[in-house]
C-alpha cells in the first residue's frame, strides 16, 4: 500500500518491457524452431496427368532444447501478380491457381495428424524433439483436362472442373506455407499484404508451379475409329426417329413416316430439319457394330476414350461435307487422346468415304491402319436394284416401294452403283429382255446403255449419276492408299451369292401395253451385297488381304471370325478365328478356299512362277515382294512353294512362265475348279530343275514345255503323271458339265438332282460299309472269346478287316483284300451257320447294285433325251462317258 505511483508506473513499464521481450523471444523462438527443406516443384504437365514430388519439414538444427510435440500446418495459397487487389481484396491479375490440384501425403509410414477443419489447410503434421525431428511429405499434382478435350467418362468430382482452353500453356502456381501455429489464415493475409514475417513466410514456403500444356504424351496404341456404311447411322426429325425405328416399320403401313428422308431432284434434302443420331450398334437381335465394339472392349478399349464411332448423314454419300466431318472427327480424336494417328475400321460406304478422305489429304490424313470390310470399291449392282425395284434390306415389313421412293434422289445410292471400272472388269450388270407375243430378245447393256437405262427408262436422277461418275474416276477406283502412308487391310466376303446383274423383263400384252417385271438376278460370289470383283478392286499387299468364307455384308463387322480378325489386325492380339465344318478358318488369306471357277496352281520346288493375263496384268514375284495385279487372282508364297489361283469365270486367258531358282526337282499341280469344286488335278512330279531352266505351262492342254538349258528353245514337253480321276473329281466334273449344258432349265435341274441322289447313295453305301466292317470285327472278336474261332485265324481276319476299314473312305474296297477275306473265312474250321453268316456280310460289302442301277438309269435317260434332241449328242456322250468312268471307279 505504501508503493508510490512512480514505483507502480515503473513496475508496469518493467512488466510491459519484460512481457514484450518475453513475447518477442517466444515469437522468435516460435519461428526459429523449424527449417523447411524447400525443394520447389516445377513440372510441365499435360491435362489429366500426374506428378509427384517430395519435401521435408524438420526442426531447425540450431534449436536444441527438448520441446516435445510441435504441431504445424501446411496451407496453400495462390499468388497474385503485382500484388494488386481491388477494393474488395480480390486479386486483379491472379496467377493460374494450382492449389486445387495438389494433394499431400506423409511418407515414412507416419500416421498423419488429422487435418483440422480450417479453411484451405491441406495437411497438419507433428514433430517431436528429440524423437521425430523430420517429416517427409509427398506432394502430388493431378491436373484436370481442358474444355473440349475431356473424355466422355470424365468425372468432375474426382478430377476438377475442366480448365478453359485459354489457360493452355500457362504456368499454374500454388505456394504452400508451413506454419507452427494454428493461424494459417492470418499468415496468408500477412503474405498478401507483404508485411510482417515476410522473410519467415518465404523461408517456410514451398513454391509449386506446373505448366499445363494440354498435350498428352502419345498413348501406347492408336485410338480406333469405326466408320459405318450406308444406313448405319440413326436419322431423327426432332424427337421422332426416322431411321431406324424397326417397331414403327413393322406397324406403319406404307412406312410413309420416312418420307422426310428423301432428297429433292436438285440433290438437296427435302427436309432440312433432320438431325443425325448415333451410329447404329445393335437393334434387338440385329448386331451391326456392337459385336466389334465389344470385341475391342474385351481388349481394353473404352468407347469415348480410345474407341470411337463416326455417325454421319449417309444419305449424302461420299460428299465434301461428310469428308470434312470425318477429318474433324479424326482431328478431335487426336486432340483428345494425344495420339498422332488413328486406326480406322471402315465398312461398306464408310470405306469409300475413307478412301476419298485419304485422297484429299495425301500427307495429313493421320491414319495408320485402315481395315476395309466389304467395301464396294467399284460399286455394287444391288444399288441398281434399290433404284429400280426398291429394297427393304431385311428390315421386317419395311415397304420396298418406300425405299425405292427415298432412294430415287439419294446421292449415296448413285455413289454405290457400278462404275466404269466395274463394267470393265465384270461386264454388263443390267440385262433387258424384250418379250413380245411371239418372240423375245435380250440384251446385256454396256456401261452407257446402263446409264441411259437408269436416267431415261426409269427417270432417275441424272445429276446424281453424273456426280457418281465424277467420283468413280479410274484414279479413285484404283487409288492406292498405301502411297499416302496408310497400312491397308481388307476383309471381303467370297462365298455368298451376290447380285451381279439385274434382269428386267419387258413383256408386251395383246393391247401393246408393256409390263415390267424382274427376273431372278444373276449371282456371283461376294458378300451378299458387294461382288468380289468390286471388293477386291483395291491395291493392297497380298499379306493384308483376307477372304471371309461366311460373310453377310450388313453384319460383317460383328460376324464371328471377322470381328476377331479385325481386332487382331488392329491390336496385334491373337484371337482365334473359328473354323468351318472342314476345319478351315472362316477368314483366311487363301482365295482358293472360296472355291470359285478357275485354276489353282501349286509349285513345290526351287522354281519361280509368273502369270500374265490377257490384259497384261501380272502376278508373281518382283524385287521386294509379291505383285498381284490380276483381278480376283491370288498369289501366295510359303518358303519355296508358290500357290496361285487364277479365275476363269470371264474366259480369262493366262500366260504362265516358269524359271528355276536352284538345283533339284520340282512338282507342279494344276487343279481345275468349277462351281466351287475341284474337278480335275494334273500333277507333274519330280521334274529336274536347274537355275537355267525356263518353261511355260499350258493349262488348257495340260502341257509343260521346258527349256532346260536356257537357250531359248523348248527342249522337252511333259504331260502330267496321271489323269486318273477320283470318284469325287468325276462327280464334280459331271456336275460342272451339266451346268454348262445348253438345255432347258428344268432338265438341267433334274439331272443335277439325280447326281445329288447318286452322291447320297454313295455316302449311304460308305456308311453301310463302315457299319458292316465294325460289326464283323465285333463278331469275330466275340467268337474268338467263346473259343469258336482260334486266335490265329481271328487275328488274320481282323488284320484284313483293318485294311478294309482304312479304305472305308473309298466306296470301292480293294477286291484283292475282299477275296482274301472270303478265302480265309471259307478256310477256317467253324460251324457252317457262322461261316455263311460271315460270308454273307463280306458279300454285302461288295454289293453296289443300287448305285450301279442309278448310274445305268441315268445313262439310259440321257440317251433318250439325246434321241429326242433335248441334249446335244456330243454332250450326251460326254456325260455317259463320265458316268461309265464313275461306274469303273466304284
Amino acid at each position, binding site marked *: 500500500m505504501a508503493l508510490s505511483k512512480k514505483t507502480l508506473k515503473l513496475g508496469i513499464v518493467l512488466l510491459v518491457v519484460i512481457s514484450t521481450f518475453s513475447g518477442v523471444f517466444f515469437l522468435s523462438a516460435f519461428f526459429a524452431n523449424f527449417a523447411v527443406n524447400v525443394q520447389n516443384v516445377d513440372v510441365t504437365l499435360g491435362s489429366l496427368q500426374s506428378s509427384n514430388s517430395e519435401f521435408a519439414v524438420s526442426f531447425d538444427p540450431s534449436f536444441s532444447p527438448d520441446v516435445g510435440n510441435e504441431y504445424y500446418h501446411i496451407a496453400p495459397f495462390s499468388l497474385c501478380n503485382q500484388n494488386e487487389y481491388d477494393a474488395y481484396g480480390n486479386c486483379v491479375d491472379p496467377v493460374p491457381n494450382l492449389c486445387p490440384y495438389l494433394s499431400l501425403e506423409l511418407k515414412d509410414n507416419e500416421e498423419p495428424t488429422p487435418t483440422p477443419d480450417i479453411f484451405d489447410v491441406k495437411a497438419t503434421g507433428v514433430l517431436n524433439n528429440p524423437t521425430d525431428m523430420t517429416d517427409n511429405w509427398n506432394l502430388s499434382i493431378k491436373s484436370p483436362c481442358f474444355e473440349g478435350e475431356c473424355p466422355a467418362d470424365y468425372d468432375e468430382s474426382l478430377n476438377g472442373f475442366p480448365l478453359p482452353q485459354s489457360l493452355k500453356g500457362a504456368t499454374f502456381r500454388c505456394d504452400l506455407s508451413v506454419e507452427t501455429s494454428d493461424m494459417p489464415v492470418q499468415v496468408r493475409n500477412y503474405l498478401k499484404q507483404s508485411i510482417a514475417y515476410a522473410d519467415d513466410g518465404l523461408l517456410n514456403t514451398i513454391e509449386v508451379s506446373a505448366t499445363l500444356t494440354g498435350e498428352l504424351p502419345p498413348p501406347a496404341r492408336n485410338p480406333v475409329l469405326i466408320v*459405318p*456404311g*450406308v*444406313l*448405319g447411322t*440413326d436419322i431423327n426429325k426432332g424427337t421422332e*426417329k426416322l431411321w431406324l425405328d*424397326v*417397331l414403327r416399320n*413393322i406397324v406403319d403401313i406404307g412406312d410413309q413416316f420416312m418420307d422426310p428422308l428423301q432428297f429433292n431432284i436438285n440433290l438437296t434434302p427435302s427436309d432440312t430439319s433432320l438431325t443425325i*443420331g*448415333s*451410329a*447404329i*450398334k*445393335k*437393334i*434387338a*437381335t*440385329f*448386331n*451391326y*457394330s*456392337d*459385336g466389334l465394339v*465389344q470385341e475391342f472392349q474385351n481388349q481394353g478399349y473404352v468407347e469415348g476414350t480410345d474407341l470411337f*464411332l463416326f*455417325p454421319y448423314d449417309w444419305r449424302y454419300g461420299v460428299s465434301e461435307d461428310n469428308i470434312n466431318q470425318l477429318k474433324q472427327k479424326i482431328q478431335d480424336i487426336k486432340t483428345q487422346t494425344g495420339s498422332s494417328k488413328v486406326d480406322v475400321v471402315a465398312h*461398306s*460406304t464408310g470405306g469409300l468415304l475413307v478412301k476419298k478422305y485419304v485422297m484429299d489429304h495425301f500427307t495429313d490424313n493421320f491414319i495408320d491402319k485402315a481395315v476395309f470390310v466389304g467395301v464396294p470399291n467399284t460399286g*455394287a449392282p*444391288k*444399288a441398281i436394284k*434399290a433404284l429400280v425395284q426398291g*429394297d427393304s*434390306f*431385311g*428390315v*421386317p415389313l419395311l415397304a420396298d416401294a418406300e425405299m425405292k421412293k427415298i432412294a430415287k434422289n439419294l446421292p449415296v445410292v448413285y455413289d*454405290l452403283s457400278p462404275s466404269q471400272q466395274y463394267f470393265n472388269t465384270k461386264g454388263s450388270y443390267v440385262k433387258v429382255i424384250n418379250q413380245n407375243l411371239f418372240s423375245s430378245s435380250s440384251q446385256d447393256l454396256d456401261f452407257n446403255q446402263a446409264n441411259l437405262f437408269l436416267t431415261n427408262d426409269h427417270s432417275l436422277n441424272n445429276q446424281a449419276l453424273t456426280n457418281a461418275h465424277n467420283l468413280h474416276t479410274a484414279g479413285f477406283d484404283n487409288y492406292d492408299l498405301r502411297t499416302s502412308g496408310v497400312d491397308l487391310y481388307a476383309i471381303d466376303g467370297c462365298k455368298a451369292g451376290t447380285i451381279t446383274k439385274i434382269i428386267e423383263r419387258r413383256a408386251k400384252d395383246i393391247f401393246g401395253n408393256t409390263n415390267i417385271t424382274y427376273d431372278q438376278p444373276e449371282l456371283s460370289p461376294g458378300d*451378299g*451385297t458387294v461382288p468380289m470383283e468390286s471388293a477386291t478392286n483395291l491395291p493392297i499387299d497380298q499379306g493384308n488381304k483376307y477372304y471371309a468364307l461366311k460373310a*453377310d*455384308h*450388313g*453384319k460383317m463387322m*460383328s460376324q464371328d471370325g471377322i470381328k476377331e480378325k479385325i481386332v487382331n489386325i488392329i491390336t496385334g492380339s491373337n484371337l482365334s478365328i473359328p473354323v468351318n465344318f472342314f476345319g478351315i478358318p472362316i477368314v483366311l488369306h487363301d482365295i482358293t478356299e472360296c472355291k470359285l471357277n478357275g485354276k489353282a496352281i501349286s509349285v513345290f520346288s526351287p522354281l519361280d512362277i509368273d502369270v500374265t493375263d490377257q490384259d497384261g496384268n501380272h502376278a508373281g514375284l518382283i524385287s521386294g515382294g509379291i505383285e498381284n495385279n490380276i483381278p480376283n487372282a491370288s498369289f501366295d508364297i510359303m518358303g519355296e512353294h508358290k500357290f496361285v489361283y487364277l479365275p476363269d469365270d470371264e474366259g480369262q486367258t493366262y500366260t504362265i512362265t516358269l524359271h528355276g531358282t536352284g538345283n533339284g526337282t520340282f512338282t507342279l499341280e494344276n487343279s481345275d475348279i468349277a462351281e466351287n469344286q475341284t474337278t480335275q488335278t494334273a500333277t507333274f512330279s519330280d521334274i529336274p530343275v536347274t537355275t537355267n531352266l525356263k518353261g511355260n505351262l499350258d493349262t488348257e492342254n495340260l502341257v509343260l514345255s521346258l527349256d532346260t538349258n536356257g537357250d531359248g528353245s523348248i527342249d522337252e514337253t511333259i504331260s502330267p503323271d496321271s489323269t486318273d480321276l477320283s470318284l469325287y473329281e468325276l462327280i464334280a466334273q459331271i456336275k460342272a458339265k451339266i451346268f454348262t449344258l445348253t438345255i432347258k432349265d428344268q432338265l438341267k435341274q433334274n439331272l443335277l438332282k439325280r447326281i445329288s441322289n447318286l452322291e447320297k447313295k454313295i455316302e449311304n453305301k460308305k456308311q453301310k460299309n463302315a457299319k458292316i466292317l465294325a460289326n464283323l470285327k465285333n463278331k469275330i472278336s466275340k467268337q474268338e472269346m467263346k473259343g469258336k474261332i482260334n486266335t490265329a485265324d481271328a487275328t488274320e481276319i481282323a488284320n484284313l478287316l483293318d485294311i478294309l476299314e482304312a479304305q472305308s473312305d473309298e466306296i470301292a474296297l480293294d477286291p484283292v483284300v475282299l477275296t482274301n477275306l472270303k478265302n480265309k473265312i471259307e478256310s477256317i474250321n467253324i460251324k457252317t451257320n457262322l461261316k455263311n453268316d460271315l460270308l454273307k456280310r463280306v458279300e454285302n460289302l461288295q454289293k453296289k447294285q443300287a448305285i450301279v442301277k442309278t448310274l445305268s438309269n441315268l445313262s439310259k435317260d440321257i440317251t433318250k433325251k439325246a434321241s429326242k434332241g433335248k441334249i446335244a449328242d456330243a454332250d450326251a456322250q460326254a456325260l455317259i462317258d463320265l458316268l461309265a468312268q464313275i461306274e469303273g471307279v466304284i
Partner: protein
Amino acid sequence: METKQKTWLWISLIMFAMPEILWNPIVNFMYSLFMPTINGSTQIWRESFLLNYRFDFLYKIILLVQLIGIVTFTINWARTKNNSQSRLTYWVVLILSILLSLLTLFIVYLAYAISHISFP
C-alpha cells in the same frame, strides 16, 4: 384332370416360364423394341448373358423353346374343358395363354426377322 394331363401342363408351362424367370428373353425383347435406343443400341430391361452377342443363336433357340412351351400349354389347357375347374378359370386361362402364344410367336418371328437385317 388326369395326372398325365397335369404333368404335361406343368412341363409346358415350365418350358415357357422358367427361361422367362431366369433371363427374361421375351420381356427384354419387347422392352428393346419399345424403348428408344441409347448410343446406337436398344435398351434392355434386365441384364442377361443371353443378350451378349456371342449367344445370339442360343437366344433364338430359347425363344423357340418358350414358344413351343406356351403353345403346348394352350393346346393342353384347351383340352381340359370338361374337367373340374370353373368355367371362368378355364376361359380366363385359355384366353391369356392364347394371347401369350400369339405374342411369343410374334416375338420369335421378329427375333429371326430382325437378325436378318443387312445394310448395303
